[in-house]
């Protein structure tokens, strides 16, 4: 199996906004110039996408971790747009990460970090647009709550072919999931990390159904128990079960879990019961039918970090 390649990140350099393109070119030279790096290895630039990520400044570590993970799968030029109301004005810094791979330094990440007060949001599309690398797909990661002014979202989304959101961060999912639906209906390509986070639950339900006799229009009742942070995900799961199974779904917010996914799913038909719970890292599924009680099975409850989910979302987009 392949060894983990060596990564090297240049120190971030603060630059005035108009000088960002020059600063990026200078980084090229720091990494070894147009042809050869200081240690004699070839240098290549292997960017596959432009990535535009926006988050509250307090969530900077989350966004950085996600970009770091993304870079391992999809080399990119990344714009990290951090909204910080303590910032007096818009400031930027640039850095690059290279990966030593088979005797070549590949520039796999060009980071442009922009810190701005919320009032500066209007200027972002004009700042980002000319810096997007030509001919590459553009992906927006809206890693924050639904904005008070919807056009902030729409203006950045308009720069990109694909938008990734995380509805876990939405304050009022009952209303805001509808905003997303409206945009999808208008043809926008939107992927929700929360939906990907639910994949193990959807998968466990599907696996459990493999053990059931043909449903044949049997009435299905579902109870979803969830904690506060899991409201958006639970709503998504409930809508899905209603649509797929014609199930009558009840959401119960009395759960004590603090994670983004439901605490428990209990599904009943006339002659079968499926009960899923995730006490720790595994979803444990109990399935019984009128004729048979199967050994419980397990599905890993998580598909990785938010960064892993983001990389998967970008692949999907």
């Amino acid at each position: 199996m392949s060894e983990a390649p060596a990564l090297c990140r240049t120190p971030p350099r603060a630059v005035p906004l108009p000088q960002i393109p020059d600063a990026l070119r200078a980084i090229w030279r720091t990494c070894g110039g147009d042809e050869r790096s200081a240690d004699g290895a070839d240098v290549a630039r292997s960017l596959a996408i432009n990535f535009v990520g926006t988050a509250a400044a307090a969530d900077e570590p989350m966004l950085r971790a996600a970009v770091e993970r993304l870079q391992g799968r999809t080399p990119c030029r990344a714009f990290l747009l951090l909204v910080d109301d303590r910032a007096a004005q818009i400031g930027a810094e640039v850095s690059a990460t290279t990966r030593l791979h088979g005797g070549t330094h590949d520039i796999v990440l060009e980071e442009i970090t922009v810190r701005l007060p919320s009032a500066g949001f209007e200027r972002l599309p004009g700042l980002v647009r000319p810096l997007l690398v030509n001919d590459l797909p553009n992906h927006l990661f809206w890693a924050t709550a639904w904005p008070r002014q919807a056009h902030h979202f729409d203006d950045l989304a308009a720069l990109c072919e694909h938008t990734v959101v995380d509805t876990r961060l939405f304050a009022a999912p009952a209303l805001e999931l509808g905003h997303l639906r409206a945009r999808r209906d208008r043809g926008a390509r939107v992927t929700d990390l929360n939906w990907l986070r639910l994949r193990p639950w959807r998968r466990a339900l599907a696996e459990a159904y493999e053990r059931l006799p043909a449903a044949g229009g049997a009435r299905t009742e579902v109870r979803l128990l969830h904690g506060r942070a899991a409201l958006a995900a639970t709503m998504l799961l409930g809508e899905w079960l209603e649509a797929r199974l014609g199930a009558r779904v009840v959401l119960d917010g009395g759960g004590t879990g603090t994670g983004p996914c439901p605490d428990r799913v209990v599904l009943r038909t006339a002659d079968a019961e499926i009960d899923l719970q995730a006490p720790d890292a595994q979803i444990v599924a109990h399935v019984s039918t009128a004729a048979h009680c199967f050994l419980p099975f397990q599905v890993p409850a998580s598909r990785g970090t938010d960064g892993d989910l983001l990389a998967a979302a970008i692949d999907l987009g």
Partner: protein
Amino acid sequence: MATTHDAATSTNPLGDELRGGRTAKPCALVIFGATGDLTKRKLVPSLMGLAKDGLLPSGFAVTGFARRDWSDQKFRAELAEGVAQFGRSDTEAAFAAMADAFTFHQSDFGDAAGYESLKQKLAQIDRQHGTAGNRLFYLATPPSAYSTILERLAAHGLSREENGRFARIIVEKPFGRDLATAVALNDQVRQGFHERQVFRIDHYLGKETVQNILALRFANGIFEPLWNEKFVDHVQITVAESIGVGSRGGYFEESGIIRDMIQNHLMQVLTLVAMEPPATLSADGVRDEKVKVLKAIRSFAPADVDRCTVRAQYTRGSFGGEDVKGYREEEGVPANSTTETFAAARLHVENWRWAGTPFYLRSGKRLPRRVTEVAIQFKQPPHLLFQGGRPLQPNVLLLRIQPDEGVALRFGAKVPGPDVRIRDVRMDFRYGAAFGGETADAYERLLLDAMLGDGTLFARRDEVEEAWRIVDSIVAGWQQSKHRPAEYVAGTWGPDAADKLLSGGRQWRKP
């Protein structure tokens, strides 16, 4: 089976969560030869790679069938060791989470009672693990055992597919040692299994970069118009190994490089390079086109074999700063052996697309580097404007399969300055750079496809037999030849005779 719920026949209203994500239906895998090297090094580590990526069904269990007196615990401990040593990162945890689904079944392959008790055991596994009566058998055994196992499986009804349940069999190479034995083996397989139940593994087809040959050709508009005799001068396919035969001398003596590499890996790569676009990417759509390529390659007449092929053995030499033995000095190899460790051949695919374009295949041991590549060499432009009309290096499109997987294009560019001078430059795409992350082992993809019932990346009976037909005609020519195999010094690119296969100023690449 009476109490086992017949889940396989039900339609799952949430099923696209599984199929869309390429999750297989529940099944039990029976590995014949489960105490062997292949199981420990490849099969179970690959299964755990699938588990880690969430691609195994939750209704899944493995039964190891072999002769040794092992308990379930001993079996699991051996497998855990194999996963730790050979698995991808984090696969140990995946194994720990599902170790209970691995059980051992002690029996001789020839013992009928062992199959009856296997049947009962599988029924119990269905009840406990929800494997729904679906079976996948893996022959990870010496080929001499295939016949007994196939016969017993059929005799005990284990190969039968009923009520929507599947029974599939994966067969490891070698598929015979010549056409006659391959036909006999295939006939025997057919007595118990339909062709659609049979999955003949050539692990080369599980490699991402081999599959990418199809993507490169048929997902891009620019290559296909040039992919024919009008523009392509010739094609070179190289599978080079830097190691010698080591302790496998006895085994290798029986096969030689032509059976070990050319009949399977090189022929498979050749078919992917030369085939016509399939109407669909279905298993038979792709394999129908591949087999047409083999059918378009004529068997060699004995008199042509010396002219169109080369065989050779490595002799003592120096490799990586160390002295290494010659082939005939290796353990298990007789001093008068004529088994080839290097073979090269010039083949013609006699069809509309490739008429007159030679395909040069070569494979050998103790060559300077371990490398697999396909080089498509294009014709020179019709009129030479530059360098005083002297020919420049031809354009080459290089598909590198291992290592440094990628695609490169060599073309001429003007050297900056007042004169018009042209120099070769290379445009290079490397998978590792563009798509980071860990790549799965070829066995992962193939095991998953067999569970899904997708035979695209497996060799069909007619492909195997056509490839043997061609190889048999070469071997027959060598047997009748008055010449011994040529020699090459270990660590070089093969014998001088190989250069003579290429005519008209063509040269072997030194990758």
